[in-house]
């Protein structure tokens, strides 16, 4: 079963708020956690330096002053222990949000993510749920080199039992996180460290972005660009440049990688007949390899006027030097060139 449901997995959201406010991605995440904690005493945050320090990227900020150290819980540097404590708490009535400072450090916690959190519901015959959220920033661009810059989403998508989201905007960072907190399953929220300080209109109040529903922030007739994480904003910037050159691109942001809204992907591919898949993660067996396979196996294949094209990170560890780091992952100009070639050559 490759093609998954497109139905929203989240609990029904309260009445959507039309009102918006400009917030950073980071503030939007904090807003979501504040709202969830005000509503449900079972929700708490646990992680390294999430308290007075405010989080490695400042996401929890001053929440400890509002909510206190019981529920904004500083831990030792023990990713595996924190993750396991999250699993145990989630199995017994709490709804932990576990913050991992860099998604690379999930490698330290992998047993509890892959062998415990993801499998417990299934393995125990459905007797127990593990309603936990794991927040972890991924991605390159900060000069932090190979152990602090990876894009590991494919690891988690490859483990049945986990849901995986990658918010690309401030509003989705809030809406997807609130949906993830509602969800009775472990949800991996992969944030992007370059997005934390970016701003956007964010719906005010207790809003949701449903899990399993893609966004289509731009529609065009010539090609479909499907991008995740930081590459969504790069794709949109590239689309502007392409438009000036007479090429109209549709941009699709899956938002949730698991469960994937393959319906929206296939629909937009059929509409344009050309598809460019863009991910920051290394190319081989990346998430877009799966998207490519889904398209190739579907009836959208018959609509294709050009081969499916992937644009991805090089198959290397992320290097330190700024020029090298930049050259390692798709940039706006790479997307423009790949899209232009796709449209002009086919």
């Amino acid at each position, binding site marked *: *079963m490759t093609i998954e449901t497109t139905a929203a*997995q989240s609990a029904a959201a309260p009445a959507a708020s039309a009102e918006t406010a400009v917030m950073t991605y980071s503030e939007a995440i904090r807003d979501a956690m504040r709202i969830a904690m005000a509503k449900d005493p*079972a929700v*708490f945050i646990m992680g390294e330096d999430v308290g007075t320090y405010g989080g490695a990227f400042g996401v929890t900020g001053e929440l400890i002053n509002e909510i206190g150290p*019981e*529920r904004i819980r500083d*831990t*030792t540097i*023990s*990713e*595996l*222990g*924190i*993750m*396991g*404590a*999250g*699993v*145990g*708490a*989630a*199995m*017994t*009535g*709490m709804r*932990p949000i576990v913050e991992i400072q860099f998604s690379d450090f999930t490698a330290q916690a992998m*047993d*509890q993510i892959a*062998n*415990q959190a993801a499998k*417990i*519901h*299934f*393995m*125990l*015959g*459905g*007797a*127990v*749920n*593990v*309603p936990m959220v794991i927040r972890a920033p991924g991605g390159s661009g900060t000069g932090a080199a190979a152990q602090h810059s990876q894009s590991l989403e494919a690891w988690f998508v490859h483990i*049945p*039992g986990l*849901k995986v989201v990658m918010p690309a905007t401030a509003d989705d960072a809030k809406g997807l996180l609130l949906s993830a907190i509602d969800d*009775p*399953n472990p949800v991996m929220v992969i944030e992007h460290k370059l997005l934390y300080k970016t701003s956007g209109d964010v719906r005010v109040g207790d809003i949701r972005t449903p899990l399993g529903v893609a966004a289509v922030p731009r529609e065009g007739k010539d090609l479909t660009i499907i991008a995740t994480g930081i590459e969504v904003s790069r794709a949109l910037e590239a689309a502007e440049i392409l438009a000036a050159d007479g090429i109209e691109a549709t941009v699709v942001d899956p938002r949730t990688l698991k469960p994937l809204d393959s319906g929206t992907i296939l629909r937009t591919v059929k509409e344009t007949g050309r598809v460019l898949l863009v991910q920051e993660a290394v190319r081989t067996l990346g998430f877009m390899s799966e998207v490519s396979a889904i398209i190739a196996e579907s009836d959208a294949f018959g609509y294709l006027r050009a081969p499916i094209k992937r644009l991805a990170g090089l198959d290397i560890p992320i290097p330190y030097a700024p020029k090298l780091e930049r050259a390692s992952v798709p940039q706006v100009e790479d997307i423009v060139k790949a899209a232009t070639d796709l449209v002009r050559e086919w």
Partner: protein
Amino acid sequence: MTIINTPIAANPELAASSLETMWKIRRFEEAVEDLYGRGLMHGTMHLSIGQEAVPTGACLALNRDDYITSTHRGHGHCIAKGADMERMMAELLAKETGYCRGRGGSMHIADTETGNLGANGIVAGGVPIATGAALSAKMRGTKQVAVSFHGDGAMGEGAWHEGVVLAAMWQLPVVFLCENNLYGMSMSSEKAFNLEKLSDRARGYGIPGVTVDGNDVQAVYDATQEAVDRARNGGGPTFIEAKTYRWRGHSKSDKNLYRTRDEIDEWRGKDPIPLFEAQALAAGGLTQADIDAVRDKVRTELRSAVQRANAAPDATADDLLSAVYAR
């Protein structure tokens, strides 16, 4: 659970229930071994025959809603915490009526009704999970305690260290109960850890530690009760080493190349069940007729559990894909 002041062996009700628990574990595992040996059971299993006094004594100190996390060698913990042998047997026989509907098998039986958060196929996997359950109990303001059963092998794992560090920092109501059966698969705990007693390690974590005879129900109960009282009263975690012995191999592939027949025989001489029966006879808690009655009761119960489990429908593959995620 009210604190038991009289010796277990002298208390007719507790002596009978403790003996019954030990016999249930023993007979359950003997049945499993037999079914496996005759090709009627699939997969693998890890038997705790010889170790029955540990879960029996420890669970006597726990309330029904207290939590335990268990191990790959977990049948004893599961039974002692109050699980139903028929549903356990059904799970091992790959039946739809099993605790995990045939999706988990021997290494993943949990029984949330009795606070058992599950056996675990990963060594020390349950240690930080117990820490989390204790954190949850503390945050929810209940008086629940969590007991992490684990083996000596788990003490070489990073998960053990991290689970204990967090529990000590937060002074959580959790008991780390090490069943030191002297071998982590084939690695002897004596060789593995440069410690006279594994409980010597507790001091390094800033928590109390004690070593007891794991073949003595009373000794295990006393140590666990003290640790549970401390935990319930906000005194934080305790480490207990219960020294015992695994009579059978690690699993079915074990050829016992790493230990001697003499050693196994020596420990068979310290069988916790006749030891307890002798204590109960001497203390007056049980007569020989009582002891015989317990054995008969367990034999009948187990036979019926196996028969009913066998008659149950096989686990079905129909809804596997929809069983991965909770709704």
